[in-house]
């Protein structure tokens, strides 16, 4: 079946409304996610999946103690995760606080790795709008390729959906051609119905990516949450013809888990999304576990931490 937007625009208004307002049954959703998590990914598909995971990774450091030195070293790892293995690609992006964008840009010069900046009073999002927009602008001025914003969860849960939507649109306007990822902070939204509604709101507001979490709240990304978001993305494409990306972030530490997210993407929205243009994994310690798994696949031996640099 052709994935073009033509089909979507031909659908009746009735169907559009149904797709937009459908609810999510938590038990059924979690069962489906659990079933997908059981896929057995082996041999070449595993190696390909692991490398894909790296090429889709946003290597992240978001700590109060981040410094230019720290960022520079992280960037070196981002460009060349394992110098001993030339088949290992660079990651997709490095994700930092807005004040460290300049350091990251400098360290990444000449590479394919993008700079994503969190902005809009990350992680809480609770600051005056003009402050949030200014931070966004500053990050772009410093050279950020992508902006990861947070939605106003307080406003969302209090029922002020319009306010949330307006903020997203305002940030997107500042972003212009730069890619905007909208963080829903699904751990605070709690229900899958909320996740779907927030996803829809973000996509209508112009998000280029919808993202699960800031990584500062637990639970962060989970397979069922990602599945709910992928289903929303799929329906949105059916209706509007526009493809929105999905970023899962927070709590993804094992290569096995990363592969499970790839399975979700593969079986829900399909292979066009298995690319850094439409899928990202926000992580830090994940990278080494993936490198260790790749090394194990190639050598047959389980690996040790001593052999992989922390950054």
């Amino acid at each position, binding site marked *: 079946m052709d994935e073009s937007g033509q089909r979507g625009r031909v659908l009746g208004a009735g169907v559009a409304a149904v797709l937009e307002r459908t*609810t999510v049954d938590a038990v059924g959703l979690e069962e489906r996610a659990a079933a997908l998590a059981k896929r057995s990914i082996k041999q070449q598909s595993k190696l390909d999946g692991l490398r894909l995971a790296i090429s889709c990774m946003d290597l992240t450091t978001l700590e109060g103690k981040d410094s230019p030195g720290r960022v520079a070293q992280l960037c070196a790892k981002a460009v060349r995760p394992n110098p001993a293995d030339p088949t290992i690609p660079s990651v997709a992006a490095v994700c930092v606080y807005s004040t460290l964008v300049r350091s990251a840009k400098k360290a990444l010069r000449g590479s394919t790795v993008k700079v994503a900046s969190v902005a809009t009073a990350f992680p809480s999002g609770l600051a005056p709008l003009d402050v949030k927009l200014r931070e966004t602008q500053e990050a772009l001025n410093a050279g950020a390729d992508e902006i990861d914003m947070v939605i106003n969860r307080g406003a969302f849960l209090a029922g002020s959906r319009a306010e949330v939507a307006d903020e997203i649109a305002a940030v997107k306007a500042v972003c212009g051609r730069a890619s905007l990822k909208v963080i829903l902070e699904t751990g605070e939204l709690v229900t899958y119905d909320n996740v779907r509604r927030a996803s829809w709101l973000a996509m209508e507001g112009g998000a280029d990516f919808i993202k699960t979490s800031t990584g500062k709240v637990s639970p962060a990304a989970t397979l069922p949450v990602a599945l709910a978001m992928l289903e929303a993305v799929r329906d949105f494409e059916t209706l509007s013809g526009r493809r929105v990306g999905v970023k899962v972030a927070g709590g993804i530490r094992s290569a096995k888990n990363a592969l499970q997210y790839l399975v979700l993407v593969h079986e829900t929205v399909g292979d066009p999304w298995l690319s850094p243009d439409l899928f990202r994994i926000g992580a830090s310690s994940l990278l080494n576990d993936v490198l260790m798994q790749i090394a194990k696949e190639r050598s047959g031996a389980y690996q040790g931490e001593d052999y992989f640099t922390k950054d």
Partner: protein
Amino acid sequence: MKSDLKPRDNGLKAKAKARLALAAPAWTAPSKWEYAPAPEAHDYIKLRPRYGLFVGGKWTKPKAGRYFPSINPATEETLTEVAEASEADIAKAVAAARTAYDKYWRKMSGVERAKYVYRIARAITERSREFAVLETMDGGKPIKESRDIDIPLAAAHFFYYAGWADKLKWAFPNTDPRPLGVAGQIIPWNFPVLMAAWKIAPAIACGNTVVLKPAETTPLSALLLAEVIEQADLPPGVVNIITGGGQTGAALVSADGLDKVAFTGSTEVGKQIARECAKTKRRVTLELGGKAANIIFDDAPLDQAVEGIINGIFFNQGHVCCAGSRLLVQESVHDAVAQKLYRRMQTLRLGNPLDKNTDIGAINSKVQLDKIEALAATGDAEGCARFQTECALPSRGYWFRPTFFTGVALSHRIAQEEIFGPVLSVLTFRTPEEAVEKANNTPYGLSAGVWTDKGSKNFKVVRQLEAGVVWANTFNKFDPSSPFGGYKESGFGREGGVHGLLPYLEI
């Protein structure tokens, strides 16, 4: 940070430095991500070249010396030979069951009987992987289903009923529950070891002894169960397992000395068995066919409802008596549901049942495949539109692509007759009353599904459906504590739960 330090010129110009960093990795992402084969290890399964009958605690040769092959429907390979029980073998088995009943089982305290049944439960769990692989090889169902559903449920059934063996007076207060005696049990090929558990567990927990005949095409897991029972040191003759085909089944049903007959299978055969038993006073329970309606309202959680449709009709290749084989979808959401269903179906993986990623396994036999193909052809002939999973079929074995037909009316054959395969008939309705009317408009009454986000609608519709099992916002859920059985021509009697004890007791 400004510094007065100037690094040494290492002779590399900036551009060259950049080129180093930019060096293309020796890997490009594949345009399609395909799963590699992930076969479940099965070389440790050691089948004997030939199996006898398990009667009176011993493995015996069939009196007439006849055997028949059991084949793997995914590969058409012969796995082994099993015995064909004749009337003489059946008489011997019933006699062994009677002796065991009189000598040991009816006299044993509930506490001791319970411990025997617990042993069977624990042993199945211990050997669960072996059971799962064997079940898949013999019957064609995907390993992930036998591993994750069939075998755990079978063990759980024994565990649950073990716990009732010494509590019958609590289950039925103010009564003196007694076992019936010897039960003859005939089970189908769609859930071989699970059906054996559904039959044997409540029967022996209540103090009866049994003679069980597994289906002709799937005897092997029952024979492994016989081994488990043998190793659990059950008194000889409490459980007897005799293999054979339709003739063996008929002979068992009409054998002298049975106090009870339990049958799961087609409605057609069920009626014959009922007639045979009507000649005597033996008790009967029947679990027969179905043509369940899966009702999707416009306010259903759509994506989960689509999963429910998939699970309802394609689980176990549709070889399920309670399969949701009629989709009744509210007309206003028909297109959205059909599109989602079609798209979702394309991700179903059909192939080697021993591959852990396989979703759709082999059709159980050539006979069944022919039936499915014939009925599906009537769908085409009667003007319905066919949609299916577009996938390759393996060159050997029996396979049928998951299929649905739209534009189906109640009067079409594919809306009335049980296909027992991965074929869904899609009909529409406008109002809840119409949905209930169409759902009930069938001689069958085994199961039904209802999908809506509105609680009160759920409770109302559920009450009106004439079906023994109703799944609301879910499908194909089974539990040993949950009674299962049909209304109308889907049979009578319940298996599972407290109600599942009644068919095996005199109260």
